[in-house]
């Protein structure tokens, strides 16, 4: 019973901590949608996949969101037609590559500045590589959730004008033969040319968008936090920590811990600091690099963009790259 109550307290604390950050992310995503001209943004983004992935990874500096907030922004980027490499690069790097996280990590690891730079460097490298790999798949739609995929379909269709009867949607008798779009993401996609509309109209849409994304992402955040809280309470922490002190198992243990604990990237450096004396530097960097990219709570949010298969690819790539890079640190540098 006490454990159940602890789990509930933990669950609430994760939510209370994360919801303001989620709200910030949703707002940034809304602002991106309604106040940034998509065509201009896309014109700036490089078409080269490697350069695109790198640019995407750096966009985080403009949007200081943690991993609860990057998902709505990445989803928006995809739906607005940004190259895959840019969106994936942003999704993976934004939680780490931003001024707030940089400052927090610096505060925590003032004595070991190399950890700060390794964290930023590795995150950039891994996000760029994964963004590049995903850009090989020219049509990302099979990997996306139907809502996001159809938004992209809509965009390409408006170019090659599919007959309106073949489009999905609702028809009303006695009205025009054009289908009425009823899917929210399609609706959003249709509203995309809103930058030219009057301000009051845009603000109204911003409100609708905020409500819709809060509801959708808030619900998955709840599921993710519930799992994280249950695992933390019912799987003893010793079990994870006792996995080892050796260069290899310490990294694996920290990657696992990062995935399970699911704390925000803005504060995880303080958490990592607590292991500074008992764990290898490489494993600390692994925690700081991998945690913001993929954790239990974040996987829930990512399910609003990707199908499980794609999340598994992301997870496998990120874990392996983190492992290899930090193992190099453990074996050759520290």
């Amino acid at each position, binding site marked *: 019973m*006490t454990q159940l*109550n*602890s789990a*509930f*307290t*933990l669950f*609430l*604390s*994760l*939510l*209370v*901590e994360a*919801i*303001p950050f989620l*709200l910030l992310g949703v707002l940034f995503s809304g602002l991106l949608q309604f106040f940034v001209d998509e065509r201009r943004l896309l014109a700036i983004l490089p078409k080269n996949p490697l350069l695109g992935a790198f640019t995407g990874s750096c966009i985080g500096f403009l949007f200081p969101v943690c991993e609860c907030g990057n998902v709505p922004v990445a989803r928006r980027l995809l739906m607005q037609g940004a190259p895959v490499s840019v969106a994936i690069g942003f999704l993976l790097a934004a939680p780490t590559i931003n001024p707030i996280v940089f400052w927090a990590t610096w*505060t*925590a690891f*003032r004595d070991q500045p190399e950890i700060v730079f390794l964290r930023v460097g590795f995150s950039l490298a891994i996000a760029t590589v994964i963004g590049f790999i995903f850009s090989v798949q020219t049509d990302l739609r099979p990997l996306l*959730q139907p*809502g*996001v995929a159809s938004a992209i379909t809509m965009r390409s269709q408006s170019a090659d004008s599919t007959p309106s009867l073949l489009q999905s949607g*609702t028809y009303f008798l006695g009205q025009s033969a054009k289908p*009425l*779009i*009823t*899917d*929210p*993401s399609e*609706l959003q996609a249709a509203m995309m040319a809103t930058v030219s509309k009057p301000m009051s109209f845009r603000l*109204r849409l911003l*409100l*609708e968008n905020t*409500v*819709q994304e*809060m*509801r*959708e992402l*808030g*619900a*998955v955040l*709840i599921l993710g936090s519930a799992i*994280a809280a249950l695992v*933390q*309470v019912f799987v*003893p*922490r010793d079990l994870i920590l006792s996995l080892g002190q050796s260069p290899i198992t310490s990294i694996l243990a920290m990657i696992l811990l990062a995935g399970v*604990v*699911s*704390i925000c990237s803005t*504060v*995880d450096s*303080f*958490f990592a*600091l*607590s*292991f*500074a*004396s008992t764990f290898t530097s490489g494993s600390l960097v692994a925690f700081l690099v991998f945690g913001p990219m993929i954790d239990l709570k974040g996987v829930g949010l990512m*399910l*609003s963009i990707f199908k499980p298969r794609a999340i598994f690819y992301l997870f496998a790539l990120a874990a392996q790259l983190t492992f290899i890079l930090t193992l190099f640190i453990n074996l050759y540098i520290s």
Partner: protein
Amino acid sequence: MARTSIRSFLPWLDVVAIAAWGVLLLYYWLSEKLFLLIHPNYIGLTVAAGIFLLFVSGLKGLFLLRSSRSRQPSAPIQHMTLFPPGLGSLLLLTVAIAGLLITPRAFASQTALDRGVTDAITLTRVKPQSFRASTRTEDKTLIDWIRTLQVYPEPDAYTGQKAKVQGFVVYPPNLPEQYLLLTRFVITCCAADAYPVSLPVKLTTGDRKSYSPDGWLEVEGQMLTETLDNKRQLTLQAKSLKSIPEPKNPYNY
């Protein structure tokens, strides 16, 4: 017909769910329960989020009211990518109501044992600037003692110093009946990363049975070095133990 009423009801569910979260965040703030959940640094952010959620929900409600009065068709029902319509809002609303009904409780001895109570804690998660050595040793809190030990771990250096510390009781599984651990949780961000720190207390009379686990105590006494569990450790020899109510902010930072 039933379908139409559900359709017109769903947007209102959004309004209520978002408002419920705004209320929950502000309620925790006003009833000072936020201290149990997150680090004080983030309280401002949470309160701002609560106010903003209420604002968003109010605005959305106003628009809904207007559009229903002017009998305009409201926005089409929206599909969700992960949940069927309404389920997401229902989940949000349920959790918010559960949060209002079930009081979050500060972690207690069971969690401390699960998370490994250590005295020679090798960790300071908090910024080193916040470290302050006070000249009067009685003014040091439990955390101050642990931090001092981190800087200079030799227990003999503190023998004979007076101390007055507060914390809750944990029964150490591997120490004799004469000892208990005076414990506090330290958090850096939210309760998810709370970790316990503790100081062994040696009782001069009786055994620990008279102090139940999780009870809060203020212990006054003198420091001495003991060999506990094959480790030389700084121990507080208790002169007086006083039961105190659980502080409104049970964590330390």
